[in-house]
């Protein structure tokens, strides 16, 4: 709820905002068309780096003030952020399987919907369908992270863990470690701590495994035994 000094101020602000929106409309729509064409061209020709030419639209102060009033353009911005990290960390881009803006939007939405099914866990069947879709697209941990931050998700503990369970065989061990680390930054859940410790043991980083294991409150006999054997090893 907005707060205003007076009713007149509220009405004047609303009038001014609508005037600005109307004044910007045709310009914003034409820029939007240009952006779509540019995305189409870059995806079709696989010139992914050229997509970053669109960044100023989103990042320069005062550029296209009403421009963000579109879920399509918002998702182009998310795509750019994902791609930046995928290139930096040499991951297969989320967009590598699409040839046009329309294809990208379809894959993006289906990914959001599948992730939401994992988050809500309303039925086994829904979870299975979601897993099947997510493992069929090049979903990097960066794509999953940006989507989880920018779309409607609430139970991140559920989302992150169920997505991990689904993607574990596909993501690299380093990616699995990173994903679980992000999960634990949000929520220190026991099963994720244990899983992360096992992953560290798999890559023989016993000190990190130990560091995580000792954070488990009231460890079981098995975990306590594991902690002491790791301690000896270190």
């Amino acid at each position, binding site marked *: *709820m907005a707060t205003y000094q007076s009713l007149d101020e*509220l009405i004047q602000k609303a009038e001014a905002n609508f005037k600005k929106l109307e004044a910007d409309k045709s310009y914003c729509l034409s820029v939007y068309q240009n952006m779509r064409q540019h995305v189409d061209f870059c995806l079709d020709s696989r010139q992914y780096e050229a997509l970053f030419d669109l960044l100023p639209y989103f990042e320069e102060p005062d550029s296209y003030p009403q421009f963000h009033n579109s879920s399509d353009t918002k998702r182009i911005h998310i795509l750019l952020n994902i791609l930046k990290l995928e290139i930096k960390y040499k991951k297969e881009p989320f967009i590598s399987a699409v040839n046009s803006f329309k294809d990208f939007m379809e894959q993006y*939405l289906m990914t959001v919907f599948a992730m939401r099914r994992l988050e*809500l866990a309303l039925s086994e069947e829904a979870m299975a369908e979601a897993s099947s879709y997510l493992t069929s697209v090049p979903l990097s941990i960066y794509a999953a992270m940006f989507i989880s931050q920018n779309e*409607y998700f*609430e139970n*991140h503990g559920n989302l992150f863990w169920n997505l991990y369970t689904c993607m574990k065989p596909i993501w690299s061990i380093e990616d699995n470690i990173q994903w679980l680390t992000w999960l634990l930054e949000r929520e220190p859940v026991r099963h994720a701590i244990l899983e992360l410790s096992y992953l560290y043991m798999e890559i023989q980083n016993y000190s990190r495994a130990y560091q995580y294991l000792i954070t488990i409150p009231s460890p079981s006999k098995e975990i306590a035994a594991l902690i002491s054997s790791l301690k000896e090893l270190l």
Partner: protein
Amino acid sequence: MCKTINEHKFAFILCTNHDIYLQECFHYLNQLIIPDNYEMDILTISDASSMTSGYNEGMSSTDAKYKIYMHQDVFIINRHFLSDILSIFQQDSSIGMIGMAGYPSVSADGIMWHSRRIGADPMYGSDSNAYAHADYNQYRYSPSDGIADAALIDGCLMATSTDLPWDDKCLKDWDFYDAFQCMNFLLHGCRIVVPTQKLPWFIHDDGRILSMWNYDKYRRLFLEKYAPYLGKSYSDIRKHT
């Protein structure tokens, strides 16, 4: 010709232009638990020229007493949604419409969200962690959770037990149909209510964006048509009926 109303039927009515959203919307509708002795229909209108004309077409093509007009990007996650709205309608026969998010008064500038909001938590999905450990499979609404009267409700989901035509003469696009219809219901003496939702009943997957291109045109129409009720609460407005 007088249509016989089926008192034991729900109809979801959706105007649609996006198959992917629609399929996902169906996914959640198909998970709903239908109360015993009731049936449920889903009507989609894919070639509507406006929200009001599409909704009128849907309204006239079903005999269901309970109609749920909603957006294709609304995903109902409360699987007991149907029995929950039924229990609310059955509390008081003057309840004509139920919304998920509403406003007890009409804002002076006609912009709904400039009034105090009730119902669905606007913090959902905002990283607030308010529902971080919610178990949607266990959640049940109880009438003791309560309802609150509203003057206006958000058009993303509007459930009705009474048929009043949508104003397709004035409203030729996709904006303000909700506010006009709420005024219509109030001025016909119907209560509009919003249930207290301890857990979210739905997700409105609008990409966190509201398209405003035609909004002002219809806002001005609203200000003109309902001038006496601007800044008034639901109870003030119902006094005029």
